[in-house]
């Protein structure tokens, strides 16, 4: 455990444990300030998150808990290793005492000591190379780790559970999981084969055995091949191996004979080279890979809990502040004049002119016509702010009514107010402000903002000098009978056939 668990892993474990436990909730202001201060001194988001969690008041308790957890896990692995050692010893003993007393069948001994081990080793190699990390989380190691998880399942308190959860997540669910399970598995196999090996050493030291092979249907040459094949690597490694003559001599003759051939060392060396050695190497390799994976596993910053935190720890928007106050005047007065949009004006007793102030050409065309052929209205055109004054200057006195069409979609700002004021200076009480395009405004702003916009326009026109009675709302985009009738009224034309 100590081998795979580095300081880096502890840091990351601590963050996850504290996050699982919700230890960041309900922090006191000084604790929060302290944590923020610690985080701000770091360069990367991950380090900021680590620093923040490390300085939480709960962190020391969790660090102690982590040591306890790891110690428990270490003890459990040790107990499992000892059990494997004993099981190995028992297997070794039973393999030697399986047949006739004092006679050992070489093939049976090697088969029972190495057979399953080799099958499982091949299975492990297949799993680790071909299967996905999740499906390779089976086998002895995974079983041991699940066992440990199950033993502690009935957790006493949520903080302990959170600490253990983070531990399990890192060891089992993370990228190091498969290597951890593999490492645990190989370690147990190491214990098992070591137990068997020691038992063989003890047995061979204390008793005399005769080593044979037996067959019913195979020939002696088949056994010759098998032993030659098994011996070759051992021979290359410099061990003494039985010669073909020794193999032939070991064929079961039906009685116990004296054997000078090195069968006992051969069996020990075979268990060592084919059993113990690969498992020891793989244990070390897998534990190394676990450590590397644990070291490389970064905190999952995409977890919502960290994402909620990061903007506070390293804000991109550092600060906002007002650097120049609003001017002290009463432009944005909230007093709203009482205006009724459903009123009509009396018919004008003389010529009427119409002008658009920064408005779009209405859907009913320009100038808007009531459509009964009797309209007589002077078109002054559609103009922008400054030009509008020029358009009415010197002409306004000719009309008893000057209708200025404005667009509700446009914002009634001070520029508009100034323009209306200039027109009012020429037209005076004859000025009528027509608020058009309510439908377009509704579409853009929605109903609530449209009614605000309407009253803003009324206020603007009123401030420009217009009486409330001279402000009318009529959507010139609505090319229907009602609109035309209202327009006819404004123009002072009677519809044909009516009195």
């Amino acid at each position, binding site marked *: 455990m100590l081998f795979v668990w580095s300081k880096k892993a502890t840091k990351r474990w601590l963050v996850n444990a504290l996050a699982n436990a919700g230890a960041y909730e309900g922090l006191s202001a000084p604790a929060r300030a302290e944590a923020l201060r610690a985080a701000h001194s770091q360069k990367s988001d991950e380090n900021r998150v680590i620093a923040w969690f490390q300085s939480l008041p709960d962190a020391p308790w969790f660090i102690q808990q982590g040591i306890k957890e790891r110690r428990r896990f270490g003890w459990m692995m040790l107990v499992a290793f000892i059990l494997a050692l004993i099981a190995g010893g028992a297997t070794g003993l039973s393999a030697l005492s399986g047949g006739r007393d004092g006679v050992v069948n070489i093939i049976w001994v090697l088969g029972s000591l190495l057979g399953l081990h080799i099958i499982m080793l091949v299975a492990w190699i297949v799993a680790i190379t071909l299967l996905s990390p999740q499906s390779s989380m089976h086998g002895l190691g995974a079983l041991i780790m699940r066992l440990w998880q199950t033993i502690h399942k009935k957790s006493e308190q949520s903080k302990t559970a959170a600490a253990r959860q983070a531990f399990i997540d890192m060891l089992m669910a993370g990228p190091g999981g498969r290597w951890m399970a593999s490492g645990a598995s190989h370690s147990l196999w190491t214990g098992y084969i070591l137990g068997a090996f020691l038992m063989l050493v003890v047995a061979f030291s204390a008793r005399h055995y005769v080593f044979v092979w037996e067959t019913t249907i195979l020939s002696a040459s088949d056994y010759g091949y098998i032993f030659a094949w098994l011996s070759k690597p051992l021979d290359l490694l410099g061990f003494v191996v039985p010669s073909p003559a020794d193999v032939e001599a070991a064929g079961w003759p039906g009685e116990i004979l004296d054997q000078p051939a090195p069968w006992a060392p051969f069996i020990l060396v075979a268990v060592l080279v084919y059993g113990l050695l690969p498992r020891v190497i793989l244990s070390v390799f897998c534990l190394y890979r676990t450590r590397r994976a644990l070291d490389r596993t970064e905190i999952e910053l995409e977890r919502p809990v960290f994402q909620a935190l990061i903007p506070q720890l*390293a804000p991109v928007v550092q600060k906002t502040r007002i*650097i120049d106050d609003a001017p002290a005047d009463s*432009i944005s007065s909230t007093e709203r004049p009482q205006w009724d949009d459903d009123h009509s004006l009396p018919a004008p007793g003389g010529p009427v002119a119409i002008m658009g102030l920064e408005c779009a050409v209405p859907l009913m065309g320009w100038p808007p016509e009531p459509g009964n052929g009797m309209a007589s209205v002077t078109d002054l055109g559609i103009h922008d702010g400054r030009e509008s004054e020029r358009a009415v200057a010197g002409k306004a006195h000719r009309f008893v009514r000057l209708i200025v069409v404005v667009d509700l979609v446009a914002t009634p700002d*001070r520029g508009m107010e100034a323009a209306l004021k200039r027109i009012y200076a020429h037209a005076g009480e004859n000025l009528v402000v027509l608020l058009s395009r309510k439908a377009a405004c509704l579409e853009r702003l929605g109903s609530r903002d449209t009614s605000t916009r309407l009253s803003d326009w009324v206020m603007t026109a009123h401030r420009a000098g217009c009486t409330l009675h001279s402000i009318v709302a009529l959507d010139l985009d609505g090319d229907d009978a009602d609109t035309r009738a209202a327009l006819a009224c404004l123009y002072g034309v009677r519809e044909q056939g009516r009195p």
Partner: protein
Amino acid sequence: MTDTPLHIAIVGHTNVGKTSLMRTLTRSRDFGEVSSRPATTRHVEMAELAIGGAPVLRLYDTPGLEDSSGLLGHLDHVRQRQGNDWLAAIDSLGREGSEESKFAQEAKALSQVRQADIALYVIDVRDQVRARHRDELEILGRCAKPVLPVLNFIKAPDARMDDWREALARVNMHAVITFDTVVYDEADELELYKKIAILADKAAPAIERLTAELMSRRRQRHLAASGLVADLLIDVAAAEYSYSLDDEDARQHVIDTLRDKVRTREKETVSALLALLEFSPDDYRLKDFPISEGAWRDDLFDPDMLARMGLSAGKAAATGAAAGVAVDLMVGGLTLGAAAATGATIGFAIDTARKHGSAIMNRLGGRGRLRVDDGTLILLGARQVWLISALMKRGHGATARLEDKDSPDKKTGEDLLAIARKARGEARWSRINVGKGKVNSGSARLVDLRRRLRDKISDLSR
């Protein structure tokens, strides 16, 4: 990197979305005040954008230029009267006495432009090009600062892009930025910073790092949001409750409980999503979800479940057989075959009991189990994916509430169901079952499922 931040003044006519632009660029729903009324912002407010504590940009939100025609006339008059040049006239604006206070708002904006390195001139492209806009451009053109026009509301159906491009070209503004403060577009934001960097080449490396940081945070937040929905779907797919088969009321009670819990869980997810993406609860209101009643079933014997059961028990049998073989080998093959067969049987029995024991015991004890049906999961998944997608494309300057899409995309929901289904039968994975404070068991399968679901949601909500 430069030590001093780049100062950028955001100017424009009143009510064109200057504060909305600030909100969207700072991802801050609370910056300033946004309304459809004129002169909503009458002060100058600064926001500083930094990486790792080092300021890169300072953005200044300024009051709108309301009476540019009047102002232009006034500046011209001052210029002629005092024999000053335009710059002197503009600079004298803030210093003038109370009689000019009618341009106090404009004075504040122009003063910021004069102090800034760059001015962003925000335009509502739904508006027609007017004389006042031309006047504003003329005044800004005389401020001796680089001005970048920002075309706002470009995604609106009534946008007049061509008119505006032409009007800007007439005053030699050929480089424009398109940026909709309501409908967020990552590419537009990148382009905005790129063009700023061209105008301020000293700050370019810092700006590049700032945009990289902004984009990486955006991606992380998107994944985090997808993770929230993945958790929701796993919780709902894995949830199950048992009830007495003889008691019809109990069944109804369980249906009601489960439905309430699913609703509560979805509400929690929506709140968490809005908070994570820095929107307020007002930005979206969850409508009640049409959780179907009829399709809720006792699905111990549904084909999916049976297939899984057969599969997992089969795997256990194989493991058991392997264990048996081990026993055989260890005892020297004396029991060859028998142990393997026993092992297989025991393996099957243990695994079946572990995984489905409670289901079978429930059934034998006259109890049934209920889960959330596929249809509900499909709708739930589709709606959440739509919500993430809508929020990721929502500018923080948007004020209109997000409206539910009429019919969530069924295909999306089905794609998610195909993955989420793996959580069926794993009640210990569901916070609906095990309770909120209790964490799920650390299993590589759960972690893998969650990640796959999260990545799929992230893909679908792009």
